[in-house]
């Protein structure tokens, strides 16, 4: 006699419980959003009207006014911020690793990483801009400081997962602490850590574009200006340039990362690994 397998998605009580919770949450949320039926009905039309205004995008005037320059400025900000974060986070990661640093040292460093990760870079930038005034380098500093949290955490994990053998080997030949770190640890973690830096750079390109919107230079400021003047065809050009640059950098950096980790720049089925890395880098672990 064959028995039918039982369903695995949870019992009916649990399912309807989840449904009720979601429904109540949705209703409560919508109640706070100042939504009226007329607004809901007109919103897609309004959004579509803007999209229609944007096309065809006005490239001629835009390139003259330096949209390309602005988007490159965003890339420079992201790069500088990533370099700042990389140089700060690597030594700190050594101080936070269980297999290297004593507890009195690594616990505070880890807490520092956690605290930094909890503050979005826009918030860092808001505070920095208040002190330094508007400008791209405040954006770079904000990105750098924020990225120290995630890069530090990931580099720490990379250092903790190394093979202890090379360290012992260096020790047996009389190598001191510095030599052990330089020849025993660093070569093992460097490929992973560099690929994390590159991944963070991809994220930082988006972040620096956003930082421009609150006055930290780059393509974001251009977008806000053109939107404020209702130059929708120029907005279209800004968006297209942003999308092209973001996708180009993502593709290039992904190829370099694959070359560093897998030894070939060809695309392989590494999608889910990317997804995990993405979640790691944004500071949130999946499952």
């Amino acid at each position, binding site marked *: 006699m064959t028995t039918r397998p039982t369903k695995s998605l949870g019992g009916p009580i649990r399912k309807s419980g989840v449904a009720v919770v*979601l429904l109540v949450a949705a209703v409560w949320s919508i109640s706070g959003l100042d939504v009226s039926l007329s607004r809901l009905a007109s919103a897609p039309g309004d959004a579509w009207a803007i999209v229609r205004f944007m096309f065809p995008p006005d490239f001629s005037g835009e390139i003259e006014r330096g949209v390309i320059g602005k988007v490159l400025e965003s890339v420079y900000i992201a790069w500088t911020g990533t370099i700042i974060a990389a140089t700060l986070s690597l030594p700190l990661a050594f101080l936070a690793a269980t297999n290297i640093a004593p507890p009195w040292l690594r616990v505070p460093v880890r807490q520092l990483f956690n605290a930094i990760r909890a503050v979005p870079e826009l918030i860092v930038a808001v505070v920095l801009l208040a002190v330094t005034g508007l400008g791209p380098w405040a954006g770079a500093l904000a990105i750098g400081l924020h990225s120290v949290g995630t890069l530090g955490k990931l580099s720490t994990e990379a250092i903790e997962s190394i093979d202890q053998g090379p360290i012992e080997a260096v020790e047996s030949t009389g190598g001191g602490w510095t030599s052990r770190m330089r020849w025993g640890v660093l070569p093992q973690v460097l490929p992973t850590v560099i690929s994390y830096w590159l991944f963070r750079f991809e994220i930082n390109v988006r972040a620096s574009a956003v930082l421009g919107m609150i006055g930290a230079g780059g393509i974001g400021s251009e977008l806000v200006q053109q939107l404020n003047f209702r130059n929708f065809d120029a907005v279209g050009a800004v968006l297209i340039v942003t999308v092209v640059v973001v996708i180009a950098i993502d593709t290039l950096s992904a190829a370099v990362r694959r070359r560093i980790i897998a030894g070939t720049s060809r695309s392989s089925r590494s999608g889910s690994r990317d997804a995990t890395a993405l979640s790691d880098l944004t500071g949130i672990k999946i499952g």
Partner: protein
Amino acid sequence: MTAVSTRPTKPKPRPIGFVIAGAIVGFTIFAAAKVGFTLTTVINLGNLPDNPLTDTIWDKGKVWSLFWPIPWDWVLDRHNVIDPLLETFQIAIISSIIGCSLALPISFAMSRLTAPNRPTYFVSKAVMNLIRAVPDLFWAKLLVVAIGVGAFAGAWALSIFSLAVMVKLFSETVDGADPRPLEAARAAGARHIPAVRTSVLPTVFPAYVAYALYVFELNIRASIVIGLVGAGGIGRVVEAQRSVFQYDRMLGILVIMFGVVIIIEQVSVAIRKRLV
């Protein structure tokens, strides 16, 4: 012991390595200079030009007095911070629900394994990649301009963006699902949608729940900041106080935000531990 122990020769570094290293260093210096990071700005962190406000503060060494003390009675007043914070949660919740529920069918259309046909696959993939390439705050600003200032625009923006993130994460999980149950269902004569629903969905659903929680956390963080461009929530208050130089109030709100983000993270970690 006759053998003369020969020391292993050090491998010669390839010239391409030097070229790459030089290019990286060169680009870094160039980028830093473009951004305005020169050695002098770092050294004279305080004496930045073209900002009369900070110049005077730094000269008197009183920058801290702008931020301190935090006016807690203002910060803890219901209208000032608590209500906007609730609005932030509302934006995050509704956009997570909308984004994640739309993501379920679209992810299946976007996976090589379960796409009904090739045009659907390519079109959905291209559209979603395009949406994801535009940063979340750009969406918020665009929608604020299109449909008006406030939480409504923010919820729209985050719904769109979390949809794009969710389909990216989840469709890759679907790609990696075991194809054999699907083949079995097809062999048994099931049509496309019932076959996917009964043979693929159960195997990937736990991942869906995990990603949904992750997207919710992302949305909480994003909804805190979208107010800076006028899309509602607590960021609106930060922007308002920043624009009138009330940095002490701003710092108070930031402290509250910091606490909220940490609490949400702890709760979410706890939930995920129970799920897994």
